[in-house]
Every structure is written in structure tokens, then in C-alpha cells.
């Protein structure tokens, strides 16, 4: 057991069995999750409809670079004279697509590895976990940079590269939970009654781990967007794809800071930050629901209170 083991060992041991609709109930009840979901939905809508509704084109040079905001251009023009708001909406498309797609890839790999290792145990477990451990220790962004710089700069490559390196955390967490689910009565009963492994996994294991998968997927979207933004800044993004990261890079290269053109830098970063924050809130709310802290503290700043009962009180 090592330090890296710690983070996955404890939660699974205390996780409550997921009930049907856990995800939905969390998303409906916890304020942080509601806010997060609202924000994400907002940006998805902007991404889908925004560029279509904008009167300006994404490549349409309208005026002088770094024109300050005005009524017709609420966020001014960028370093090439294109409307910032339109660019931001287009950026939403690219960034969100990368985020969701990469997260999907990572979840698929992670679930495959984690469930297989947890369910079948034995040699496959050991082998898979060794591989996972190595990937876990190697710093993600560094490897992404290296691969992206060798492979090439098409958006699909970027998505694959990010997805292919983000699966490790999910794999470990899933493995831990699947291991404990495997020992549960209904699973053993299903197998004893002659159910195949595949059937058991689909019918009994997957429903139990699905909230955990969803929580991980959401958190990975945040990481994927962060990584894409970073890769774009380092010049490794797809030059034809306009993502928020690319907008930050363009502004930075065109010396927006010196020009005082805050409208070219601040909005794209805020968009990224907002989406990442929203995903983090949702993901954490889900994780909290799966690992409730049952203990109250014995100690806090304020201690217990004294009350004097009057004669008439019961």
C-alpha cells in the first residue's frame, strides 16, 4: 500500500450501496449540484445555438484589432478584429466537445480496466493495476505534450491523447468498488444460480457503480477542458479549431496585456473557469452523496449550551 493507494482505499470501504436514482436525486436536491448543472446546461445551449444566432461570422474581420466593447460588440473585437462574443460561443463548442469526448474515452477505458480488474481479480487484476500504477505516476500533461508534439495537431488527436491519459483515477476507484460489490450476497447468488459473468456484470455490478462512474465522468470533463486549454496555450492545439484555450493564446501572443485589451483575455478564461467550477461542484456533490460522513464532531469552536428550564416546561 502506498500513498497513491490511500485516496482510493478509504472511500470504497465506506461507500453506501447506491440506490436507484441516486444521481438524479443528488442533482435535484443539493444546491451546489443544481447550480453546477444549470451552468453546464447553459453553456451547452450556448455552444449549440450561439454561433448560429450571432449576426457575425467566426472569421469575419469587422474592424480594428482590439476594439473596446460597445453596444454592438458587448465584448469588443479580438486581435484580428473579430467579434469576441461570437468567438466565445464558438469556443464553447470546441472546448465542450473536447471535454465531453475526452472524458468519454477516459471513462470507457477506465471502466473497462477497473471493472475487469475488480471483478475477475487474480492475475488480470495484478497486471492491470501495475499498468495503471505506472500511468498514474507519470505526469499527465507532460506526456500529453510529448505525444501531441510528435503526433500532430488535429483536434481528434488531441481528444484521443487527453482521453488516453485520464483513465487511471477512474480505473482505480472503480476497481475498489467493484471488488466490494463482487462479494455482496446478490452477486454471489446470481452466479450460484448459473448466471454468466457478463450477465452478472451488466445486471448487478454496473447499476451499483454507475453513480461513481457519472461522478468521475463529470470531474474528468473539467480536467479535460483544463488540459486542452493548457495544450492550446503551449501551441499544441488544433490551429483551425477555435477553443477558449486558443482564444487565450491568441490574446496573449498579440500582447493583449500590454494593450490593455482585457476583453480579449478575461472572458475566455472566465468561461473555462466557470465550466470547470460547475463540473467540480456536480462531481463533488455526487461523491459526497456516495460517501456520506456519518460522524458528527466531538469538538468545534462553539461548545454545548446550557439552558435553565422554567417550572412549566416539560
Amino acid at each position, binding site marked *: 500500500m502506498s500513498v497513491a493507494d490511500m485516496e482510493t482505499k478509504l472511500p470504497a470501504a465506506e461507500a453506501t450501496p447506491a440506490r436507484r436514482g441516486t444521481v438524479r436525486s443528488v442533482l435535484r436536491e443539493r444546491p451546489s449540484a443544481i447550480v453546477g448543472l444549470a451552468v453546464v446546461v447553459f453553456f451547452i445551449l450556448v455552444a449549440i445555438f450561439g454561433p448560429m444566432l450571432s449576426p457575425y461570422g467566426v472569421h469575419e474581420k469587422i474592424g480594428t484589432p482590439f476594439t473596446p466593447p460597445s453596444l454592438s460588440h458587448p465584448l469588443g473585437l479580438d486581435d484580428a478584429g473579430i467579434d469576441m462574443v461570437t468567438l466565445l460561443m464558438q469556443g464553447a463548442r470546441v472546448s465542450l466537445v473536447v471535454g465531453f469526448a475526452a472524458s468519454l474515452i477516459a471513462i470507457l477505458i477506465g471502466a473497462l480496466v477497473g471493472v475487469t480488474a475488480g471483478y475477475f481479480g487474480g492475475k488480470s487484476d495484478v497486471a492491470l493495476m501495475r499498468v495503471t500504477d505506472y500511468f498514474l505516476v507519470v505526469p499527465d500533461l507532460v506526456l500529453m505534450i510529448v505525444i501531441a508534439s510528435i503526433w500532430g495537431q488535429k483536434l481528434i488527436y488531441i481528444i484521443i491523447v487527453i482521453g488516453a491519459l485520464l483513465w487511471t483515477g477512474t480505473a482505480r476507484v472503480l476497481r475498489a468498488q467493484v471488488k466490494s460489490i463482487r462479494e455482496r450476497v446478490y452477486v454471489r447468488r446470481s452466479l450460484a444460480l448459473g448466471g454468466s459473468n457478463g450477465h452478472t456484470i451488466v445486471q448487478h455490478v454496473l447499476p451499483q457503480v454507475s453513480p461513481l462512474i457519472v461522478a468521475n465522468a463529470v470531474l474528468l470533463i473539467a480536467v479535460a477542458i483544463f488540459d486542452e486549454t493548457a495544450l492550446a496555450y503551449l501551441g499544441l492545439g488544433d490551429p483551425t479549431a477555435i477553443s477558449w484555450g486558443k482564444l487565450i493564446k491568441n490574446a496573449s501572443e498579440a500582447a493583449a496585456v500590454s494593450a490593455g485589451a482585457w476583453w480579449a483575455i478575461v472572458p475566455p478564461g472566465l468561461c473555462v473557469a466557470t465550466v470547470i467550477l460547475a463540473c467540480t461542484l456536480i462531481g463533488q456533490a455526487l461523491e459526497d452523496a456516495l460517501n456520506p460522513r456519518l460522524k*458528527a*464532531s*466531538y*469538538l*468545534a469552536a*462553539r*461548545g*454545548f*449550551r*446550557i*439552558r*435553565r*428550564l422554567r417550572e412549566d416546561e*416539560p
Partner: protein
Amino acid sequence: MSETILSVEDLHVWFDLPRGGVLHAVQGVSLSVDRGERFGLVGESGCGKTTTILAMMGLLPPNATVSGRVLLEGEDVLAEGERSARPHRWVDISMIFQGAMNALNPVQTVGAQILEPMELHGYATGVDARERAGTLLELVGIGRDRLDRFPHEFSGGMRQRAAIAMALACEPKVILADEPTTALDVMVQAQILGLLERLSEELGLTVILVTHDLPLVAHVCHRAAVMYGGILAEVGPMDALYHDPRHPYTRMLFSAVPDPTGESEVISIPGAPPRLDRPIPGCPFEPRCDRAFEPCSSVRPRQISLTDGREASCHLNDPALTEAS
């Protein structure tokens, strides 16, 4: 032996619940314990017995509100909350908890944990304190050489014995024991109880023993109190509770044949304990009582004094009510 060392007067404890609402865990409990006595406090889980003894040391959590008095040798421990409770802790009254596994700090040696209160309260320091700690360990049957070991290196029974040694560090007058033998096997249970008995005789310690294990109480304690649903159902000498119970709950409890394997829980009386987050108008035991009569569902029974030392909270003991019905 009949000098009162600790008395609880009309103790109430409320807990704020996380989703709003209040749990009335202890509802007006009064009892008194004599010096040198072994006093049992029994009842089902959730009846308020643990909360009651925690209140005796003022060890209530931040979400608690308390009213009433706890007089330890005449001084009200709860008068000013934490401030009035703290000076008595460990010096006059100490405690051993259920499951010493968690009650001991895993990253400190056992010796350090016994030493700490000694140095804190000025009983001994340095080498002298270590010496005393070693003596205490030997008193409970653990070798002195174990002072520098960590709790996880001890077995369950040894940990509990170490906890007893720790509880004796500042020579308290009263020891509270909260389910000290739960989760230990029978042989070890007997050892621990024998130890407590011996220490109480030899050192003149007053022991208040909280448990749900009736044969244990019957064996070890002089007097006992039975709690139910936050109230004190009955209190009195052990054989009186056994042979002449004045509360139906006491009677049902003690009429069970003691389980020779020592694994008995409280015998199952049909029904469930009451919810304490809502006010109960009458007697909390009424739904499960086989002798309930007219006033029981609407009038709260008071703690009524019977012969000396005995009290019961049951309308059946109230001549005024029984004559009327």
C-alpha cells in the same frame, strides 16, 4: 457506604438534528450514586444511558443543549458548561469508553497517553510519571515493558485494560464505564469485569457501569438504574430490581433467563423504542406495556420515591392514580 458522591438532578439533553428538529435524548433523569458503590445503568440502545454519563463529565458535543444539575461531591459540574466541567475531568471523575480501539490515539504510544493527564494535572512529571504509568499497567495485568507500544499492537482485551490504567492515572474517585466489554469475547469480558470489581474494592472507587447486558449488571453492581426512552424507569438495589420490580419494563427485562454464553442482548419485548424527536404526551413505554391503564397514554409519569433508595417512573406506583382507576 451511604454517602452520596454523585447526584444527577432533573437532567435534560437535547440534540440539534442535521436536517432541523431536535432530539430530546434525556428527559428529566434524576439519580444518585454512593461513594464506593458499583452502580449499573441499563437499557436498550438509544435510551439515553450513554448521553447521561457523558453529561456527568460535561462531555456533550457542540450540537447539544443541556439543563439540570450534576453534583459531584456537592459541586455542580454543569453550572457553566465546559468551564465548570473541565476542572473535574480525570482528576475526580474519569471514563472508559466502548471499544477502546478507537478511544486510544493510534499515533501515540500507550505510555504517552497514560502520562499525558498526569503531567497535565500536575500529578507527576518525567521519570516519576513514567514510573507511575508502569505501575498502573501492572495493576491491570499488563507488563511494564509495553509502555512504548502503540495501541494497534495490543489485543482488544489488553487495550481495554490499558484504557482502565489510563483512567486511573489521576486517582479519580468515580469511573464511568460505557459498555466496556462489548465486542470482547466471554473470557476477556470476565477478566475485565473482575478487574473493575477488584479495583473498586481495593481502591474504594465508585464505578458507574453502562451496559445492555443484564447478567453482567446483576453480577457486578450493587444498585442499578433502568432507562427507557430518555427517562429513568426505575432505580434501586440489584435484587430489588430482580425480585420486586416496580416498573413493567424492569420486570420484563429481568424476567429473562440469563444466557449462560453471556451473549444476551436485552430480551426482545415486542414493539420498538419511541422516537425522541417528537414530544410524547404520556409514558414512553405505554405502547409496549402490558399493564398500561387509563392515565398512561396522556399523563407523564414522575419519578416517584418508593422505599429508601428506590424510585420508579410508573403510574402503577402512584396511589392516587391507582385508587382512582
